[in-house]
């Protein structure tokens, strides 16, 4: 009976470490994708800025260019910056998850929240945000 209990503990420990590692890897990849997407979008908006601003505006109707129905150009610049911040924080969360496994729930929440918020700025081509959410959820489980 005692022997069986011992084996279960070992398995649980291994499983927990494996889940932590999976959560770390998923969150890290997600964070990197969110950051890369944010940087790329920010640079593209800076380079082709006005043109993209116009196109976004156009999606709100041709009047978008006149600033009436379309979103202001700056709001898209802002959303890309939001993605940048989220990417950095998800990466920090992933690294902390790895270095401080005892605090995994706290960092799981951080990863989850900022991965969801990153959807505002295209969330690492959406794949990054999904990986981040999966990593955060795994850390919480």
């Amino acid at each position: 009976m005692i022997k069986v209990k011992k084996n279960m503990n070992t398995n649980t420990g291994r499983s927990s470490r494996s889940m932590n590692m999976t959560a770390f890897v998923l969150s890290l990849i997600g964070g990197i994708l969110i950051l890369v997407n944010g940087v790329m979008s920010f640079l593209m908006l800076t380079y082709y800025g006005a043109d993209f601003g116009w196109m976004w505006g156009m999606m709100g109707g041709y009047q978008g260019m006149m600033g009436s129905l379309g979103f202001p150009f700056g709001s898209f610049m802002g959303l890309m910056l939001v993605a940048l911040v989220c990417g950095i924080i998800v990466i920090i969360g992933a690294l902390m998850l790895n270095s401080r496994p005892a605090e995994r729930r706290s960092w799981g929440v951080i990863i989850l929240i900022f991965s969801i918020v990153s959807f505002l700025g295209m969330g690492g081509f959406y794949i990054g945000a999904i990986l981040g959410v999966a990593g955060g959820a795994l850390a919480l489980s």
Partner: protein
Amino acid sequence: MQKSFSSTAILTLVVGLIAIALIIAFSYTAIFNPSAPVNDAGQAKTLAEQYASSQGSNLQVKEIMEFSNQYYAIIQEKNTGINAFELLVDKATGRVFLEPGPSMMWNTKYGHMGRSRNPTATMPVNSEQALRNAQEWLDFNFPDARAEEAETFYGYYTIDFSRNNQTTGMLSVNGYSGEIWYHTWHGQFIRMIEYD
């Protein structure tokens, strides 16, 4: 089992959320959206020149057209005399845009899509054929309208059209497929200034 939220994590959460809130708040202000109304064609030309010089030193403003929705500018290459691309200058904000549509999608040298390694203004569809295509399209969509001179760009032509000798609109003809792209976004034509 972890009982409380880590203080470092709380700090990260608070700092992150504040940063995001500030970015979103500022993105709707003048800091992210600098604007200055454009009151005349001279100002529009200056802004178009600034945009053109950012794309290369070999470019100049050839023509400015004022429409009710915005100013339209043709940018020309100094050395070849070939029209490079078309710009729009927003009257309300002074923001300068590469014109969406043909200039962005069909331009084989300066556009965003389908740039060619050897861009040329000599195309399978010549200017006469482009004018014929434009007139056919006009006859169907704007009876009584007449296609005017074709402006040649890399990959396409842009043609003004008029009714009763009064310019009323603009369309583009693809230099390879002969396809028509009507410029729906200008509004009413007001005046035109050509530069040497």
